[in-house]
């Protein structure tokens, strides 16, 4: 085993696998609950980072009116505009890339979670052989291995396999990808709620396309990979929205109003809803940031 794999296993993968099994044992051997609990724990662990990210984005939102003024003033002189923007960021103590790190950190976690789910479900002998090397053994005895195999059936789905539910319609089997649709809907919803709008036409177009493609892309992943990963995506999206509502203290807005008004609030999302922050949005429509934006103007 190469040193990178060894370190990754030791630091990420092995603790995740064992934690997942312990949660499975504690939660009545219900693997869906174990995935939900693991997701919540990961979000709690990442909370300091995501909160920092959201605070940085709030600051960026508060600077929007002044950035727009700069845009109007130096719109034709790109070099001067960039200089003034950097100056403004410095004055405000804002790093426009401050939101990147938390998102980047989540890539290996996402992959490790997927691998942990697949390995614990032990769908084929090679996965089980790999699993055998990763389980903690206490007093030389592998107590966790007595939990194997995991009960992987959840309602209509085998959590360790891609979603292949069919309904016969007129003698033809029609696929019914319920979990995939849930991933698409929750991803779209969380993006819709949390992605700030933009006044810049180019940015608006890019955002619109990304907000369309990202849910479809995650839907495609979900349809082709194990259903357990879909559970992780859905739970993460829902938790992202709850966290967003907590931060903005705007539950109604997070759930309903933004759709009705066709507007989105200021605080950016976090993956897998996958909407990294934007500094190009206008003053935020949610009550608290908007008040801050006004006060910044005056």
């Amino acid at each position, binding site marked *: 085993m190469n040193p990178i794999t060894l370190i990754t296993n030791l630091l990420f993968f092995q603790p995740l696998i064992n934690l997942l099994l312990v949660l499975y044992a504690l939660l009545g051997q219900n693997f869906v609950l174990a995935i939900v609990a693991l997701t919540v724990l990961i979000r709690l662990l990442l909370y300091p980072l995501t909160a920092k990210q959201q605070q940085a984005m709030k600051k960026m939102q508060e600077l929007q009116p002044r950035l727009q003024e700069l845009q109007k003033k130096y719109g034709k002189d790109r070099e001067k505009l960039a200089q003034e923007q950097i100056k403004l960021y410095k004055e405000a103590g804002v790093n426009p*890339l401050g939101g990147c790190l938390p998102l980047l950190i989540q890539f290996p976690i996402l992959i490790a979670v997927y691998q942990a789910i697949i390995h614990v479900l032990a769908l084929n002998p090679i996965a089980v052989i790999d699993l055998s090397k990763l389980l903690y053994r206490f007093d030389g005895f592998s107590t966790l291995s007595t939990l*194997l195999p995991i009960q992987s059936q959840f309602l209509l789905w085998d959590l360790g396999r891609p979603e292949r539910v069919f309904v016969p319609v007129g003698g033809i089997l029609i696929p019914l990808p319920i979990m995939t649709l849930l991933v698409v809907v929750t991803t779209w919803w969380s993006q819709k709620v949390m992605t700030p709008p933009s006044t810049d036409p180019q940015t608006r177009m890019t955002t619109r396309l990304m907000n369309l493609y990202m849910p479809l892309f995650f839907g495609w*992943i979900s349809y082709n990979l194990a259903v357990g990963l879909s559970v992780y995506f859905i739970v993460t999206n829902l938790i992202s929205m709850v966290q967003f509502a907590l931060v903005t203290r705007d539950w109604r807005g997070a759930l309903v109003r933004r759709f009705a008004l066709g507007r989105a609030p200021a605080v950016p999302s976090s993956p897998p809803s996958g909407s990294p922050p934007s500094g190009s949005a206008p003053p935020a429509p949610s009550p608290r940031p908007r008040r801050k934006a006004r006060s910044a103007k005056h």
Partner: protein
Amino acid sequence: MRMSLWNRNILKGLWMLAGVALAACGGVPTSWPGMQVADQTLYVANLDQVLAVDPQSGQERWRFPPKDGNAGACGVVYHAAPAVVAGRVLIAAEDPATGESRLCGLDRESGALQWVYPPAEQPPLGPIFAGLISDGTQVFAGTGDGWVIALDPETGQPRWRTRLPEAGRGAARIWATPVISGTLLVVGTMDHRLLALDRESGGLRWPAPFQAQGAIAGALTLDGETLYVGAFDDHLYAVDLGGGQERWRFRAGHWVWDGPAVAGDRLIVGDMSGKVWALDRQGRPIWAQPFQANGPVRARPLVVGDRVYVADEAGWLHWLNRTDGTKVKSVNLAPGRLLTPSVVAADRIVVAPTGSPFRVIAFHPDLSEAWKLAR
């Protein structure tokens, strides 16, 4: 502003890349080779091919699917050890994307496809990792979703299908190659149980009154009226074939995956910590100390005369002295992993590595290389 736009869209792109990485994680087919020897022919199911090979020379007799042919519903990946009966070679073909399998009957002489079960228009079976076995008139297969199926090898028509009763862990998955004894077909399951079915009807004859604390995933070993069963609770169990009562158990150093090799007065068994023991028929160690391999020993050792061959997951093939377990010689086949049992055919020791550029490698008894077949 530009930086923020850059920031957002680059990160979304990175998320997509992460998604692609995830997709790649799930799409690589895994090889779990199986081999069978019948009438001086070696049959190997490994990854995307089933081969019939002359074990003496390594000359290929046929392959399925043929180079210019279409395997139809029998395509993609082949895991389980084939069964050879009368004029047929039976194989299990799996679609790794869905884990669904079909059983296929090939002509023994040419490798031509004769039948598929279930036919393409019917729903497929669950994954099949357990080796296929035959009593000469029927072929038996256990599936990863708890079905045991008996087929007519000539036509592929099912004689019976039995769904094993569940025991609180969902389907009673079968990964262990069953054994036949008289009118019994004994099956070990991933949900820790041992069950005996009637060979002719598929009806349940007995569930073993004892239950292991770990999954039973490997081939069972039959020795007279005693059945030896390895489990993921680090034990090897000796079980009375009459009613499934436990006779004794031996605690190993880690999971015991495959049952032992029977070698005269002793049983040779390996575990996933890489230890190999020789036990007497009461489960007492014979060698002064167990042999320590270089990686987990998943597969049943192979005993030929006074030689014991042990294959480990790190890709080493060891030749031990049966009497005291001392090592005589080892060869390394890395990057291949040796996960499935070696076989002996025409005085050749044959292994089918996983993750190797070679599908099959044959050795002389002294572990000098005889021949190998590239992918």
